[in-house]
């Protein structure tokens, strides 16, 4: 609180009809009770009835006085506030000022209006400017004319695309998206194993373009990425093309407007586009994981900028991926899995599950290499119209899985030295050329649903994977 002078303080704005109404009353008080300090939030010429109105268009005084309604009348004694009135009430004002006939011909009661300090987003701006946000991050002071987007490039904070400059005001707004304290440590971010706080996540989420209501999802994404089975360090450092892929299940996906349907892996949806990017920026900026340095990818893939979507959970007959992992439909979850790209399976003709599966099996067996069974994992994404084929035939997701598992096998004789050849096969397996080896012996073969309702497509998101690391991980989003 700033030092305040003894006497009366009034805070008003011209835009408020109640303030307009009582303007002559402020004049009367000034005349009869001695000096009244009047702060005007929008027009320093208002009210005309009082001399020496203080211009508070910047709202510094209103902020320090904690004004939420105008008009507010404050009584100050010995430098401290002793009483305050909001709005207009004749009896109250008469008692407050000791002027018995004050406003005798005015209406008895008029509610006030919202103070300009209550305008959307204003609190963050005012705390950033005049208050103490309590945030711990280092402040980087820049000249008024500095181009902040360019600064972010100069400092090496971006993935190559522009970022939203992380001003204190925006970070405060972002932190309002979570109940968790800014200082809470989320975990150690590879490769440099740096402690990452909720605040640092918020800063990077601002830069990624997130809206504050994504924060619970973003925080869970970061936490899930640190589950050892996911292998974030490996995903970052590998020469492979893989990137973390973010899938969201449960009610929150709809609440924040994520896309599970048309163009699901494409552009155009803010949440899909920015949540995955937050993880990438945290790894880059907090963890120090830079391409060309620790990131040794030969090709990489566009998903390394961002790759996020929601699973299509609309049809109740099939379980969702999250349900398969033991969660309920009422729980919101984040699933992270490595992915190096999307391969469509185009089948416009098949009308039965068996026919469709013929296409799926041939596409899935070809993942990476028709004769490779090691270190290969996939998410099979069943598109909208293909889903209908299974629903109509009464196939459950498990029916589809069982049917495919039986056919996704390769005889030992066909497994040739490729990526890692026969490595990983037991001597017993190798001894029998007719023995059938599951294509996805890593166990990383999963089925999810997403995509537009019209068009007979499914898709494969492939990745390297193993039995122990580089596996999908799922974590509940706690609001």
């Amino acid at each position: 609180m700033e030092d305040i002078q003894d006497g009366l303080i009034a805070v008003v704005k011209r835009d408020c009809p109640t303030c307009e109404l009582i303007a002559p009353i402020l004049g009367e008080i000034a005349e009869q009770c001695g000096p009244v300090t009047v702060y005007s939030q929008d027009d320093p010429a208002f009210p005309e009835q009082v001399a020496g109105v203080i211009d508070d268009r910047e709202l510094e005084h209103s902020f320090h006085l904690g004004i939420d309604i105008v008009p507010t009348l404050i009584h100050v004694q010995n430098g401290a506030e002793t009483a305050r009135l909001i709005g207009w009430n004749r009896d109250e004002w008469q008692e407050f000022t000791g002027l018995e006939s004050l406003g005798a011909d005015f209406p008895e009661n008029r509610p006030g209006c919202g103070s300009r300090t209550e305008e959307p987003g204003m609190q963050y701006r005012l705390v950033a400017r005049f208050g103490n946000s309590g945030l711990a991050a280092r402040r980087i002071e820049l000249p008024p004319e500095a181009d902040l987007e360019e600064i972010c490039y100069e400092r090496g904070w971006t993935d190559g695309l522009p970022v939203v400059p992380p001003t204190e005001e925006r970070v405060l707004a972002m932190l309002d998206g979570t109940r968790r304290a800014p200082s809470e440590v989320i975990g150690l971010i590879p490769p440099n194993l740096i402690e990452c706080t909720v605040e640092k996540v918020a800063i990077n989420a601002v830069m990624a373009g997130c809206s504050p209501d994504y924060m619970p999802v973003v925080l869970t994404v970061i936490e899930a990425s640190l589950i050892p089975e996911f292998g974030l360090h490996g995903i970052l450092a590998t020469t492979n093309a893989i990137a973390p892929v973010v899938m969201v299940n449960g009610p929150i996906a709809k609440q924040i407007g994520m896309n599970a349907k048309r163009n699901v892996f494409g552009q155009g949806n803010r949440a899909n586009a920015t949540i995955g990017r937050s993880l990438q920026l945290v790894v880059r900026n907090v963890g120090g994981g830079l391409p060309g340095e620790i990131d040794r990818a030969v090709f990489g893939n566009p998903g390394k900028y961002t790759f996020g979507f929601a699973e299509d959970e609309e049809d109740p007959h099939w379980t969702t991926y999250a349900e398969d992992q033991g969660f309920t439909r009422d729980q919101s979850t984040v699933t992270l899995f490595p992915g190096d790209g999307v391969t469509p399976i185009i089948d416009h003709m098949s009308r039965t599950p068996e026919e469709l599966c013929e296409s799926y099996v041939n596409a899935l067996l070809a993942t990476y290499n028709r004769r490779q069974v090691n270190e290969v994992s996939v998410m099979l994404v069943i598109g909208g119209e293909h889903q209908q084929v299974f629903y109509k035939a009464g196939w459950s997701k498990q029916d589809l899985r069982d049917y495919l598992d039986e056919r996704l096998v390769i005889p030992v004789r066909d497994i040739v030295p490729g990526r890692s050849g026969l490595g990983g096969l037991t001597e017993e397996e190798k001894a029998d050329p007719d023995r059938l080896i599951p294509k996805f012996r890593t166990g990383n073969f999963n089925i999810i649903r997403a995509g537009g309702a019209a068009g007979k497509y499914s898709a494969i998101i492939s990745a390297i994977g193993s039995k122990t690391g580089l596996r999908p991980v799922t974590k509940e989003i706690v609001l």
Partner: protein
Amino acid sequence: MSTREQILLDPTAEISPVMTPHIARPGSLDGLTVGLLDIAKQRGVEFLDRLDELLSERGITVKRYKKERFSKLAAPELLKQIKEECDVAVEALAD
């Protein structure tokens, strides 16, 4: 707004200083080659000519370079050439 300093919050681990210090100096110019880069403003060349003389008097090898235009950044190829041919560099003269 436009007259106020702007503030960004640091998104990094804050391991590196806000201001990166300049890189280490060689300690002495003995036996080194100094690149003189003319930013291509009028009269700057006279100043550089004099530096050239003073350096040469001390037995220091000097190489001369010139930017295309003072208001433009030096071309990456030019910087690379200086790196290949010189040990240290002096750029003049902004006025």
